[in-house]
């Protein structure tokens, strides 16, 4: 067991040595892998942030129920009872037309204009907090509420958030496609690097096979090389993303200040970082495995 461990360690060191044996080529390979990985990962980071922003801004979805202008107190009370009994409604807050006008004056600063209107143009309203918040139930609830007596208009406040959600879903699929394509590219890069290495070490492979090396023995150093190269590529990708986020920090701070928000970009989480590194190691390993496998099946004797 200890022996197997020292052997693996020796092979691992050999893999590192081989990468640094040709520093320029090794560095370029790692850079290419790093860039290929950083594109989808970077987009993923932006998506995560956009998602956070949407969640923060939309909050819980609400339905505004505007009553008709001629609704009497009696109608308001009746509606309150109906809403209380409705199974889709979690809470209903009443905002009288007088209160609404008050709020409008406060928030817009258009006191003079509003005072000049003479009579209050705003209707009574209920703010409904629904129980279910998925797009379909919200839509059904809105339609149901629209049909209640004395209701002039029922408006789903957060429908834009759902549109945004759909847009993000679209972007997510796009990132997934990009990630898949670039993963294939990464496998291809490793495949080719290993192929070139195999060509330079063909003598060693041939001789080793002739004096009793198993395919596993021959494969191992190349697999380690692929994995190490993948790992270094993953680290390069992480560094590219971290640097980019750092560079974006200042302009974004200015931008978000202008919009009176305190939004900051979140970096890759620890879990995501680990996933990125594991994934790049796996892809490097896979590329090497395919490459050596192809070579071994060719020289089978």
């Amino acid at each position, binding site marked *: 067991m200890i022996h197997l461990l020292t052997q693996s360690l020796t092979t691992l060191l050999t893999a590192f040595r081989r990468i640094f044996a040709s520093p320029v080529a090794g560095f370029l390979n790692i850079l290419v892998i790093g860039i290929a990985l950083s594109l989808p990962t970077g987009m993923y980071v932006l998506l995560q942030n956009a998602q956070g922003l949407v969640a923060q801004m939309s909050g819980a979805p609400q339905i505004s129920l505007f009553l008709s202008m001629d609704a009497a107190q009696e109608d308001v009370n009746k509606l309150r009872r109906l809403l209380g009994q409705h199974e889709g409604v979690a809470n209903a807050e009443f905002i009288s037309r007088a209160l609404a006008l008050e709020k409008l004056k406060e928030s817009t600063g258009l006191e003079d204009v509003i005072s000049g209107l003479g009579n209050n143009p705003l209707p009574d309203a209920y703010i409904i907090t629904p129980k279910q918040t998925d797009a379909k139930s919200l839509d059904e609830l809105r339609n149901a509420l629209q049909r209640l007596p004395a209701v002039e208009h029922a408006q789903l406040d957060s429908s834009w958030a759902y549109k945004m959600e759909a847009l993000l879903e679209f972007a997510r699929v796009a990132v997934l496609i990009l990630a898949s394509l670039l993963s294939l590219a990464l496998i291809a890069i490793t495949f080719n690097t290993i192929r070139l290495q195999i060509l330079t070490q063909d*003598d060693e492979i*041939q001789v080793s096979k*002739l*004096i*009793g*090396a*198993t*395919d596993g*023995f021959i494969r191992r150093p190349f697999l380690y090389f692929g994995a190490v190269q993948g790992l270094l590529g993953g680290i390069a990708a992480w560094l590219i993303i971290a640097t980019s986020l750092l560079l974006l920090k200042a302009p974004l701070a200015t931008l978000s200040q202008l919009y009176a928000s305190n939004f900051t970009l979140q970096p890759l989480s620890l879990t995501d970082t680990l996933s990125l590194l594991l994934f790049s190691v796996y892809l490097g390993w896979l590329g090497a495995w395919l490459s050596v496998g192809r070579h071994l099946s060719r020289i*089978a004797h």
Partner: protein
Amino acid sequence: MITFNNVSKRYSNGFEALKQVSFELNKGEMAFLTGHSGAGKSTLLKLIAAIERPNTGSVLVNNLNVSALKSAALPYLRRNLGIIFQDHKLLFDRNVFDNVLLPLQICGFDHRESCKRVRAALDKVGLLKREKADPIALSGGEQQRLCIARAIVNRPSILLADEPTGNLDAEYAQEIMNIFKSFHQVGVTLLISTHDAGVLRDDQVRVISLKQGEIQCTTSALTTATEAA
């Protein structure tokens, strides 16, 4: 130890290297395989190591039918054989010591034990002082001895040598033969191919003579040498 039963080998280009070859080599026996180049000596040795497969017949090594062996089992067969290749197959990207170390790395020996064995093998062929040298810097005879050291470091029970004295002058060739004889004395089974009758002259060992892929005769060395003279 090694048995050939009606073995024929035809290469894909149609060349028939061996025709209905049958012979048996006992445990601890030493034999020479002679014949002109193209007589099938190398092919015969390759069949024993399963580097080539016969078209008909069977090759048994230690009662194991190597001609029907699965490729996954080949490495373990070859670890029991010491092979000295005609073209040496030394690795020029590493020194003498590491060349001899390779078979032990393949078998997964522990490092300290490996070093001991490598030095013992190099000592046996007289290359102990050259362990740090690059193979390219060795003379033809030294390269051949390095090849032998690599073949025996694993302590195989069978040693196959393909033209080990091919390009060497008589003195070097005799030196190599003496090394082989010392292995014979400790019970190793040896099969050595050669087209050089000179090395056989003073040996009372068995000779298997091939001509155009067929066994012509198997006799003792003395008679062959006399015939040749």
